């Protein structure tokens, strides 16, 4: 809802016979000492009646209608939404109709916490996932990184156990359109975790291959590097020599090296230092070389790369100490 929009169709509540029994609660001077609401009469009128019926906890059809007006005036008022949910339940309204109502409001206000929470609650009450996947897909058509939308889709899939290949395919479709869509990568990871496939060799092979195809061409795409490293969290990067080999080859063949690629190789060296592979020292030297290169190609993170350099030495010393104590 854009700022200052007023409801034209309904007359002021103060002039309506069916509301004559209610004394509106208007703002007091104390309530307007600062941050005074910059609103027209219709806004003040509707909300002063809302406040009055809220105070007496009235449950009625007219109150439900009043929340319609108040939501049109400000869809971010969580008190109105909470009251509306209380009314919906008490009055036994059709929840499917309410779902259509909230769908329209979300399309107008896709970045509002209250409207998405309202939708989640309704779907939970209805007890089936209905068209929720299509609904979020429509939201992503406009804004493929809408945080609330992804959060909602995750909840639907988890709550109704909808995890499966269809969801993976959906992210593949989005990533082919825009492989820089980090929300889609995150969702893919979420699905694999929920599906309990993230540690399966077969899944890892498919996913790593998918990453290689994208990262091999788009080395400056952070999302794919993060996803690839994320796949190997439990085993470590060094658990996959094939990935190391691929990354090394990419490094030696690429001229305009993305810092994500060099940083990926640095992380591999860091793991080797921690594990004390080859005595460690050779990997400290290589890590330091990568840090120097990163300072050159990615100067905005110079301080971070210098810290990494110190960390490489630190890890090496710790590893030696550890090896001495545990021969």
């Amino acid at each position, binding site marked *: 809802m854009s700022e200052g929009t007023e409801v034209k169709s309904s007359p002021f509540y103060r002039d309506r016979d069916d509301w004559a029994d209610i004394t509106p609660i208007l703002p007091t001077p104390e309530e*307007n000492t600062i941050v005074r609401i910059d609103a027209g009469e219709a806004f003040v009128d509707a909300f002063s009646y809302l*406040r009055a019926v809220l105070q007496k906890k009235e449950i009625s059809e007219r109150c439900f209608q009043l929340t319609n007006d108040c939501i049109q005036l400000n869809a971010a008022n*969580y008190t109105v939404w909470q009251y509306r*949910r209380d009314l919906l339940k008490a009055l036994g309204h059709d929840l499917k109709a309410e779902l259509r109502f909230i769908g329209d409001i979300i399309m107008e206000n896709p970045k509002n916490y209250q409207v998405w929470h309202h939708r989640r609650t309704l779907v939970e009450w209805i007890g089936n996932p209905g068209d929720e996947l299509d609904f979020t897909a429509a939201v992503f058509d406009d804004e493929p990184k809408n*945080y609330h939308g992804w959060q909602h889709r995750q909840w639907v899939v988890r709550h109704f156990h909808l995890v499966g290949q269809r969801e993976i395919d959906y992210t593949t479709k989005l990533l082919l359109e825009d492989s820089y869509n980090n929300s889609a990568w995150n969702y893919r990871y979420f699905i694999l975790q929920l599906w309990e496939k993230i540690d399966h060799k077969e899944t890892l092979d498919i996913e790593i291959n998918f990453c290689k195809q994208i990262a091999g*061409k788009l080395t400056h795409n952070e*999302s794919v590097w993060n996803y690839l490293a994320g796949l190997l969290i439990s085993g470590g990067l060094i658990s996959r020599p094939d990935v190391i080999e691929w990354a090394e080859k990419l490094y030696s063949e690429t001229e305009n090296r993305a810092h994500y690629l060099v940083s990926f190789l640095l992380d591999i060296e860091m793991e080797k230092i921690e594990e004390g592979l080859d005595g460690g020292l050779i990997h400290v030297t290589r890590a330091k070389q990568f840090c120097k290169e990163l300072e050159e190609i990615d100067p905005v*993170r110079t301080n*971070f790369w210098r810290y990494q350099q110190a960390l490489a030495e630190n890890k090496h010393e710790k590893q030696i100490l550890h090896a001495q104590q545990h021969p």
Partner: protein
Amino acid sequence: MNANVLFRSFQEKFQLCIEERTTPTLASQIRVEDMCQDEAQKLGPKEDEKEWKMPFFDRDHHLAYTFADLSKCPTYLDASRPWLCYWSVHSLNLLNHTFSHDMKSKIVTFLKTCESPEGGYGGGPGQIPHLAPTYAAVLALATLRCEEALASINRETLANFLRSVHQTDGSYIMHTGGEVDMRGVYCALAVAKLTKILDQSMIENTPEWIISCQTYEGGFGGEPGTEAHGGYTFCAMGALTILGKAKLAEKDSLLKWLSNRQMRFEGGFCGRSNKLVDACYSFWQGAVFRLIDMELEKEEQPTLGLAFDTRALEEYLLICCQDPRGGFRDKPDRPRDLYHTCYGLSGLAVAQSYDESKQLILGGEAACLPPIDPVLNITAESETFASSYFERLLSR
């Protein structure tokens, strides 16, 4: 564009690299880089001049804008009025404004009308209590550095409200019947810590819940499984710091993700991987470096020291985010507002905090802001005043 020797940001060689075809993400990134470059170009020498102009911190206009916007509230923020108070008074405090007695009293009077009989604060009078405006109200009151303001907080009912929204899994719902996310945990713990009402019943399972939101990228999402995001990462690390449990976070991946949020061309921070720069993340991301350092110090590990490119961030804020009429904006094509003014200034304070001598601050002495507490985001002076007030209250 000429070789731009003056600035660390806006270097042509660090513009976006398109390796294949363009995509919606790349197209919007190019657009933003172009508009930032245009802003930098405005400081370039005109016909007869040789020198580049240094960016100027427009303190007077920022003060005037913040003051003007404290008087009125647009309808879409009708359920966030304590936020407007906090964004304004914290901005004014950072700008070294001295609040008159009359102003303090108006703020205290108004916020008291938002306090719920059940405890905590609503987004406005007559609204049910909600953790976000509760946080904003308590921080606005603490910012004022006056006993009357702190005494106006009903700590007993506040504690009841916090317990009522704490969930058995450790998370917090924002209000009765409301949504769960990381903001809730942070807002609850921040006010409980400051007013010294934090107890075990408020933090049962909370550290575990927070950690369950750290993602494979290293940052934190709003709920378990959701995408790593700057705002939620600050909330998570702020909450863990309050609990003395920051060591539970996986630091290496967090630091890497965090460092990668600084944009190599624009100099400012973005909120998530492959998203656009936005002034507000100057604080949300910038402050987390400070929180990590606090933890490293506690663990007697080598600290990060200067952890990100503070000069590049100062350049983004001063060159691209100041509205010529005062106030800060997300990026050059967005309108100014109090939210971005508050977090732009707060981010600038974080960047400046690394320069203890204050000799190298962009914009010179006129741009110099006071130190802030990176956990709460109020000035260190306000934090000390409030903490010692509540300390005395406890010892009575």
